[in-house]
């Protein structure tokens, strides 16, 4: 393994928690409003004790999304490249969601236009019973001219 990763990041910071947060209890109204904003019609999302649509978990972003070792100016010109979500227990009204964030990966790919750097931030979410709610990997891409 090289001594540093792209952007000069020390590999020892990978997969070490840099942020954690615990939500307020999720309300039935929040779930219904989220579902309604997407035009959802599944009755489970709208009852007195609703279950949240799977992607409701994306709203738990913690205090900071990217590792503090990555310079903030990095994000000015790059863009959101994609996301992978592994879903666990559905979120229900009354649940409290604990989110833990790590820098999961930084890697380089070479395409036709040159080298691109991908930063993968991982948010791991559990409910108040310790059950896994979701693991979200968010990929941020820096285009060749942005890579220093």
């Amino acid at each position, binding site marked *: 393994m090289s001594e540093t990763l792209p952007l000069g990041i020390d590999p020892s910071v990978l997969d070490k928690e840099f942020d954690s947060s615990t939500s307020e209890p999720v309300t039935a109204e*929040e779930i219904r*409003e*989220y579902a309604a*904003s*997407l*035009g*959802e*019609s*599944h009755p489970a999302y709208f009852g007195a004790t609703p279950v949240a*649509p*799977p*992607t409701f978990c*994306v*709203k738990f*972003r913690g205090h900071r999304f990217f590792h503090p070792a990555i310079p903030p100016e990095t994000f000015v010109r790059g*863009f*959101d*490249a*994609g*996301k*992978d*979500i*592994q*879903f666990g227990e559905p979120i229900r009204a009354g649940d409290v969601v604990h989110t833990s964030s790590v820098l999961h990966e930084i890697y380089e790919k070479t395409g036709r236009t040159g080298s691109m750097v991908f930063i993968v931030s991982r948010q791991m979410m559990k409910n108040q019973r310790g059950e896994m709610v979701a693991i979200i990997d968010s990929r941020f891409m820096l285009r060749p001219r942005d890579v220093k």
Partner: protein
Amino acid sequence: MSVAAVEIGHEIPKLEITLTGDQVRRYATVAQMPGPRFMSDEIARKEGLPGQILPGNMSMALLSRMLTDWLPDARLEKLGVTFRGIVQPGKPIVCSGFVTDRRDEAGGVELECDLILEQAGERRITGVAGLRLPKP
């Protein structure tokens, strides 16, 4: 629809929708993503965009909606997307997909699907999903 009839190659019923700027602002607010580019044409243009855009999470959520509209009893186990271009309100969005794998197991049926979100005839998002259903 019954999962018994779902085979590899099965086309998922399309979700066709045109969102208003207000709908995008509403989602961005409730999903706690109040980035200026999601809220206003004027600010988005200052950022070099053609106008207000959807948060990537909202486009992803529309693909999720297509799946649960199709199979309401399904449990979405994974969803992965690659953002290839911006998606805007005021223009038709077409979400589509098809089944790429089916596994019948003791506890239920697992489906793998490829997903596409198109706008103006271009693939703006591609993705994959894994679903689990009770045995038929």
